[in-house]
């Protein structure tokens, strides 16, 4: 693989003009939840490699990759990582090598998709954060010694947060502030980057709205710490200062849906996926969106959300992984 070829591959790509994802009214789902108004922000329909909110970061990521001159992408991810699927696809179309370190088996859906897009998979099912990092580091050293230019792609960067913040501007342009109701944005949260970016976007575009981040795998305190760190790092502000405090004041974090942890199926998430499908024809998956909707259902039942709010449920994608989830039956009723 030559530098000219990969540079040309990157230059030919353009994610700077991704059309806004639809904001779809979901009246039947709203009725099931007993809330006045509910819309779904359809980032699952963003058109690259199966879509998802992670695609929003590709324009900025491409810019950095072009500047780096890298010929190989290294990244890590979980068994149903959207980032793994999307970056592996990006590498395929740009002509880069891609190596994925995954803390799951070769049979994990993200490993299968990564391989499908031509990435080399390092499956480390018993890996911890530490051993995974040691493996990436070792590989980085090998590639460097062999004269290749590899770059490690993190789960979140400042530029990623800016892209997610812009998504709130997109929501505003779609008329959300015109509603007399207060807006509550509900999103699944894994790395915390989407939530942090949305909070930056709320500060810039929609100060009256709130954000409810439903954790897919971490306890609330840890997720809030991560979001705080991302915000402080992106803005340069004191993490305990007023500026970050104002951003965090719009955030609620809930971890009731995590069940057995990352990727672990729960009956509530399966039921929520079935509800979304049968009420609105929406496809969700059990790791992120299914758990987010399950938590929203539970909070609605217990009355801990304001039923007069206008709820925007952010569909963060991951639909390609529903197929593997359907290999085991969802609840019949």
């Amino acid at each position, binding site marked *: 693989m030559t530098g000219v070829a990969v540079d040309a591959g990157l230059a030919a790509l353009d994610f700077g003009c991704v059309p806004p994802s639809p904001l779809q009214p979901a009246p039947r789902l709203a009725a099931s939840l007993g809330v006045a108004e509910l819309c779904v922000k359809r980032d699952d329909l963003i058109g690259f490699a199966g879509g998802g909110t992670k695609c929003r970061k590709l324009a900025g990521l491409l810019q950095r990759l072009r500047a780096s001159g890298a010929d190989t992408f290294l990244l*890590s991810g979980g068994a149903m990582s959207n980032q793994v699927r999307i970056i592996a696809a990006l590498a395929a179309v740009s002509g880069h090598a891609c190596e994925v370190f995954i803390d799951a088996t070769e049979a994990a859906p993200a490993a299968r998709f990564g391989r499908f897009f031509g990435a080399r998979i390092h499956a480390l099912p018993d890996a*911890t*954060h*530490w*051993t*995974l*990092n*040691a*493996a*990436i*580091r*070792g590989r980085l050293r090998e590639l460097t010694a062999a004269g290749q230019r590899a770059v*490690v792609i*993190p*789960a*979140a960067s400042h530029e990623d947060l800016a892209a997610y913040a812009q998504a709130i501007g997109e929501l505003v342009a779609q008329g959300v502030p015109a509603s007399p109701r207060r807006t509550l944005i509900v999103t699944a949260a894994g*790395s915390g980057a989407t939530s942090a970016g949305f909070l930056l976007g709320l500060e810039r575009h929609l100060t009256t709205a709130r954000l409810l981040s439903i954790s897919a795998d*971490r306890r609330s305190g*840890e*997720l809030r*710490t*991560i979001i*705080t*760190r991302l915000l*402080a*790092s992106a803005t340069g502000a*004191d*993490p*305990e*200062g007023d500026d970050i405090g104002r951003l965090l004041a719009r955030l609620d974090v809930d971890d009731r849906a995590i069940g057995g942890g990352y990727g672990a199926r729960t009956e509530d998430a399966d039921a929520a996926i079935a509800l979304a499908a049968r009420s609105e024809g929406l496809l969700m998956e059990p790791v992120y969106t299914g758990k987010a909707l399950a938590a929203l259902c539970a909070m609605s039942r217990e009355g801990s959300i304001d039923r007069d709010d206008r709820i925007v449920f952010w569909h963060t994608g991951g639909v390609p992984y529903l197929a593997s989830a359907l290999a085991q039956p969802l609840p019949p009723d």
Partner: protein
Amino acid sequence: MESIEARVRTFVRENFPVSSSDVPSDQSLLESGIIDSIGVLTLVTWIEQEFEIVVADEDVVPENLDSIERIVRFIERKAAAGGA
């Protein structure tokens, strides 16, 4: 010359800001969300450059790197052993 602990604290605060007050010396950096998984790579690279020591892959374990005090002890140990 600043102490090793002061240099480690400055690095953590500047690269993984979560609190303007000091992180407790024995607090897990990874479990508490202060350092993310890729952040471990950043930390290790910084240790190698800042203290001119070699961190082997088998050194990248929580016993060596998952708190301020463990990082300081690890650096001291490595430096005493001649940087390798």
